[in-house]
């Protein structure tokens, strides 16, 4: 009998069916979620705090026992082929879970050993990933001596050392400075391009928008959106742009099809609807002899959509409970 993961033409890295989790205290963290991730995808799993993201990742990585449902990783069911399923995954958890008394080098070498890598290969891989994460110079130091961002990078090196086919990144760049975060993004794009499937949870929605091709939004234990990133972003009807002007204005100009507000003398806020393009805006500005020095998107598009979806769902729940 074919497994869920092999029914389709393409291979699924992850297949989840009706997954539920109720903790001993009665908290129902997952209320029956379904989603699947294609092999090679870069997938964002987003949601507010306590939505169930970390519980879902905990079940997929076997750190949390599920209440019911099916999970398959590259066709391996975690109930019947747990060892094979585990061999496919790497995990960067949300909380620091390093042995802080071990040296940086030993943290990565030990993880290699747990996955059955011989010592020689483990040393080669450890050097490779510690260099990528800019930690090679700190390899002899105890993990506790690292900064928060360095610890997080060490967890990424540790998760990659056995070169997993499926990588779970649970808020991997929290506390990491902007420069290193950008270099980590570049590196994640590279390993994804090389074939590693990545599932990312993050509170930096700019990060998800920049990196991921698919997105699922989870709220209160349920998936409320699951589609291609471009499809999800198209649902956004309005975008807000801030224009820096070359010369000050005394009042906001009237531009047909756009809402405008003058924030400062030389700063104009423009709200664009789906029916118009930025070209329409610039033609009208040009006609009014208003010169634009620069333009930026005021809000993160995904963030706005995310907030809207979560609010809409909460409103629906409140209305249902009131009626």
């Amino acid at each position, binding site marked *: 009998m074919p497994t869920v993961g092999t029914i389709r033409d393409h291979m699924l890295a992850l297949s989840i069916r009706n997954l539920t989790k109720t903790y001993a205290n009665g908290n129902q963290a997952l209320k029956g979620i379904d989603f699947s991730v294609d092999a090679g995808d870069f997938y964002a799993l987003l949601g507010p705090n306590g939505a169930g993201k970390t519980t879902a990742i905990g079940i997929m990585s076997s*750190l949390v026992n599920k209440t019911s449902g099916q999970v398959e990783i590259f066709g391996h069911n975690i109930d019947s082929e747990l060892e094979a399923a585990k061999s496919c995954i790497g995990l960067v958890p949300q909380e620091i879970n390093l042995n802080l008394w071990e040296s940086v080098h*030993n943290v990565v070498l030990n993880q290699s050993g747990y996955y059955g890598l*011989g010592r020689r290969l483990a040393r080669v891989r450890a050097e490779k990933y510690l260099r990528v994460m800019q930690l090679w110079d700190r390899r002899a130091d105890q993990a506790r001596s690292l900064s928060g961002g360095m610890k997080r990078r060490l967890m990424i090196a540790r998760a990659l050392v056995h070169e997993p086919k499926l990588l779970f990144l649970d808020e991997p760049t929290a506390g990491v400075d902007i420069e290193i975060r950008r270099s980590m993004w570049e590196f994640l794009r590279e390993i994804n391009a090389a074939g590693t499937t990545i599932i990312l949870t993050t509170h930096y929605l700019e990060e998800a928008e920049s990196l991921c091709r698919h997105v699922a939004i989870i709220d209160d234990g349920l998936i409320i959106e699951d589609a291609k990133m471009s499809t999800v972003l198209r649902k956004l009807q309005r975008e807000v742009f801030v224009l820096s002007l070359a010369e000050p204005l005394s009042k906001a100009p009237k531009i047909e099809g756009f809402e405008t507000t003058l924030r400062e003398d030389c700063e104009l806020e423009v709200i664009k609807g789906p029916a118009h393009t930025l070209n329409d805006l610039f033609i009208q500005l040009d006609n009014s002899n208003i010169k634009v020095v620069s333009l930026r998107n005021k809000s993160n598009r995904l963030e706005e959509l995310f907030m809207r979806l979560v609010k809409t769902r909460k409103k629906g729940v409140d209305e249902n409970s009131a009626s």
Partner: protein
Amino acid sequence: MNLKLNIVALQTIVRKEVVRVLRIWVQTIVPPAITMSLYFIIFGNLIGRRIGTMDGFDYMEYIAPGLIMMSVITTSYGNVVSSFFGAKFSRHIEEMLISPMSNATIIIGHVAGGVLRGMLVGLLVTTIALFFTKLEVSHPIVTISIVLLSSIVFALAGFINAVFATKFDDIAIVPTFVLTPLTYLGGVFYSISMLPEFWQKVSLANPILYMVNAFRFGILGKSDIDIGIAYVILLGFVAILFTASYQLMRRGVGIRE
């Protein structure tokens, strides 16, 4: 089960445990050596002289095997309970739990770490004992097999304690309220033949009595109990405690939510 993977993983856990023990040797090796030196000085040398002989041996010579065994079992227990609970507490146990190694490998690796530290401390205490008394091993195979089995039993018990422990107090309760009383009442310092008949029978319910006496038999050739029964009890405990540890790991008790 992937045998090669599990062998490499086992080597990794044992290496990690040995590195841990040697890194903090002042906490892991020195204290039992100092404690046992004090026992030898106070109970053996100072008080022992007034006691005279026991079962035909100098008191110092009589208590030496018991003190060695006491240091081995408390060290084996302590090593596993502190190492595994420490891994739980700081959550780096997750490194092992997400990996494809089997639960049996995780258990055996930690038990091996406990046994190695137990043997290291046992050798050190034996060396210290030789400064105070002579020790001629009567039955080497019995001596080695009994000390190894006893160490394994207590390493497994320490593992189970660590699985259930949720705070540091929980890993001190069993050693304080169970292990220490049973050890002191397990014939380390006396022969149960000195006790009234009723208390002799009660003493026979103490598993540590069998370990201490079987080990004493290995060294001195003298025991209060049947050595065969000691082997049955030890092997039985190994089987029961390993099975219990395995089931706890399989169900994720105390380690998986």
